[in-house]
């Protein structure tokens, strides 16, 4: 492997990593601002112009808080929980294609950390690892509320991974590829997958809410029933990691949804814009479009959070097993039939 290639990848990964942390950081501010706007308030506005430095202030506060580790807890696992949660949240973005190949400093650089041909499966693997952080943290706290939260998180994630996977199978029937780069390339221009797979997208969206533990599926941390759920016993930056992991997860799943269903970096009229802007700024514009889509999804996540009340646990299970899974299977059958009819048997 050439040394320039390693440096190029290293720089790119660092940039993406920093960017996802930055987006997650400002998602916390956006969440509070959007919550405020939806409730006729103004939200945090004292730290910096319009509250711009609020995330920094929150971060400093988290670091300065007293670190409490319960005496009856399993110390190693207690620390491993939030570490694992944030680690798995961060590595999810590795296979997402951020843009078309870009011409920079006389070189062609792929705007993707790695294009593995089973990109979707990688994302699934990482997402299902994410629940281990919550489970380990909740169990190691040695607290009934934490354990309840952990159990809920585990069973919820297992239940919703199935319809998510099934909805992806229907998508794969359309795309014929597991590589996210291929899927993004196929949606060139305005041929977005959401037009071919509206039901699949809906199922995927609902499951994404459940996987990221966002309202209306935030039963693992359910304040009204479980104090703080799996992070009841956590304080200081370990709590911060758990909360932060949720925002990074939200960012990554928004990126995945934008890539799989909303064309990723593609937008109508992109060929014209590419010929106008050249090989450097054209892909950059595509990247900006992708980020616009991601922000729209993040806004949607927050909008839903501050609108819809939490599901009851039996309702959650009913929705997952009795509605989403049959719907997803019906979607596969329907997609298969249509593909067979269009392509000939």
């Amino acid at each position, binding site marked *: 492997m050439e040394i320039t290639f390693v440096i190029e990848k290293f720089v790119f990964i660092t940039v993406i990593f920093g960017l996802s942390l930055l987006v997650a950081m400002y998602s916390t501010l956006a969440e509070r601002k959007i919550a405020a706007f939806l409730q*006729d308030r103004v939200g945090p506005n004292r730290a910096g112009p319009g509250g711009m430095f609020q995330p920094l202030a929150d971060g400093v506060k988290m670091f300065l808080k007293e670190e409490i580790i319960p005496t009856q807890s399993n110390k190693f696992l207690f620390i491993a929980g939030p570490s694992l949660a944030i680690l798995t949240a961060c590595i999810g973005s590795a296979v997402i294609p951020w843009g078309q190949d870009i011409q920079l400093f006389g070189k062609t650089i792929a705007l993707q950390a790695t294009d593995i041909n089973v990109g979707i499966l990688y994302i699934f693997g990482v997402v299902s690892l994410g629940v281990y952080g919550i489970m380990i943290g909740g169990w190691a706290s040695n607290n009934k509320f934490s354990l309840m939260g952990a159990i809920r998180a585990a069973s919820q994630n297992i239940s919703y991974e199935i319809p998510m996977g099934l909805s992806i199978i229907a998508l794969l029937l359309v795309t014929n590829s597991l590589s996210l780069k291929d899927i993004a390339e196929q949606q060139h221009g305005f041929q977005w997958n959401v037009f071919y797979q509206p039901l699949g997208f809906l199922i995927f969206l609902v499951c994404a809410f459940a996987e990221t533990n966002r309202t209306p599926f935030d039963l693992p941390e359910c304040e009204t029933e479980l104090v703080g759920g799996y992070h009841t016993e956590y304080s200081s930056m370990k709590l911060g990691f758990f909360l932060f992991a949720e925002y990074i997860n939200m960012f990554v799943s928004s990126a995945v949804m934008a890539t799989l269903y909303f064309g990723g970096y593609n937008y109508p009229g992109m060929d014209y814009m590419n010929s106008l802007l050249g090989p450097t700024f054209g892909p950059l514009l595509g990247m900006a479009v992708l980020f616009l889509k991601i922000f729209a999804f993040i806004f949607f996540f927050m*909008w839903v959070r501050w609108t819809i009340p939490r599901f009851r646990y039996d309702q959650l299970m009913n929705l997952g097993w009795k509605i989403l899974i049959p719907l997803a299977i019906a979607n596969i059958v329907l997609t298969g039939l249509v593909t067979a009819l269009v392509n000939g048997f």
Partner: protein
Amino acid sequence: MEALSNRKKVLEQKPMNFWERMYLPAIFKGMAITFRHMFKPKETVFYPEVQREFSENWRGMHSLKRDEEGRERCTACGLCALSCPAEAITMVAAERKKGEEALYREEKYAATYEINMLRCIFCGLCEEACPKEAIYLDGPIVPADYLRKDFIYGKDKLVEKPLTELTK
């Protein structure tokens, strides 16, 4: 049992129909409502810079009043301290000396008069109890502070400014 009034309504809980079981129409309705609220005028009052209008009978910080000639009305009878349900008021009485007639209205006055603002519940019973109309809760909001001892307000903070200072 038979209802005496006709106001009772029996609500029937029907099983959810297909659209209700889909959840989606209800969700879209709710989200439309919250989206509309994004553009509504905000209710926030930016407190330290802007103060909300208070009602006529609002009870704030206490002030010890003076009479028309600028003499302190309080005679340290202690009725306010007795009436205080939070035991926030203490005072030490003293006798008026010769030559102090311009300062205190009657022969007895409060040498020290302290209200603990952390104990005070702003019920207004002290102003009701006062026979001399010497204490009123007509001041501003009691400001925040860092130390407990700073919340014990003495005469320096409670007594009204003399008339001469007010007219200046």
